[in-house]
């Protein structure tokens, strides 16, 4: 049996067994640690740290999730997850394609095509999206995906009776 005491909060877990609430607390600590890693990674200008930390966090979370004993996942919860994921992908790929098409149009200078079309025209200079701007776009898409997933998850959880009142 391992014991960890941290700021008057006591977590007790047995090897291979973990309670749901302990798991949620662990996820919270992992999230805080990730924020710290992100901050420090930015301080030292080294993206590798946060990348490695993120992969480690996912692995730890996955292992911990497998050891939770009282977290039941049945066909209804799986259906909610499945539907939310599918709808997120369906909406996300449309938005992503719209953005990508716009970017390709910019790259090819297509809006100027009818005026500038000449056989002797030089090909447009290849423009690469600045990494900083690319980072902002990535962040935007990441946030969009998270919001879409959470939104769809809430919608389907409600649809399949997650917040139904019980007369028992």
């Amino acid at each position, binding site marked *: 049996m391992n014991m960890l005491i941290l700021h008057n909060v006591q977590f007790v877990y047995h090897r291979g067994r973990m309670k749901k609430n302990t798991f949620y607390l662990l996820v919270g600590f992992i999230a805080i640690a990730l924020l710290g890693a992100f901050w420090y990674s930015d301080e030292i200008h080294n993206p590798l740290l946060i990348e490695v930390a993120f992969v480690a966090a996912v692995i730890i979370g996955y292992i911990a999730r497998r050891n939770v004993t009282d977290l*039941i996942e*049945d*066909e*209804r*919860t799986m259906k909610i997850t499945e539907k939310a994921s599918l709808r997120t992908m369906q909406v996300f790929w449309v938005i992503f394609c719209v953005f990508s098409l716009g970017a390709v149009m910019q790259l090819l200078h297509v809006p100027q095509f009818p005026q500038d079309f000449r056989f002797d025209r030089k090909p447009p200079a290849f423009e690469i999206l600045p990494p900083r701007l690319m980072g902002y776009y990535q962040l935007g898409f990441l946030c969009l995906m998270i919001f879409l997933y959470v939104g769809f998850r809430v919608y389907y959880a409600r*649809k*399949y*009776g*997650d917040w*139904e009142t*019980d007369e*028992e």
Partner: protein
Amino acid sequence: MKNKIKVFRAMYDLTQEDLAQAIGVTRQTILAIEKGKYVPSLDLAFRISKYFKVNIEEVFTYDEVTPTVEEKQ
């Protein structure tokens, strides 16, 4: 799809939590099935009826008039 899970639970004096634990689902799933918010898979329907030692059609009845959860949307 209509069901008589609530009736059978009352007959066996079971809470939703008891039934959920017995067939390996969450209490919320039993509640959702009872309220018609979720139509269980054949596998789960058979597990429920087997638990009550009755045929599946005694617990679940197909109701053509009532639209399914999917059709309601």
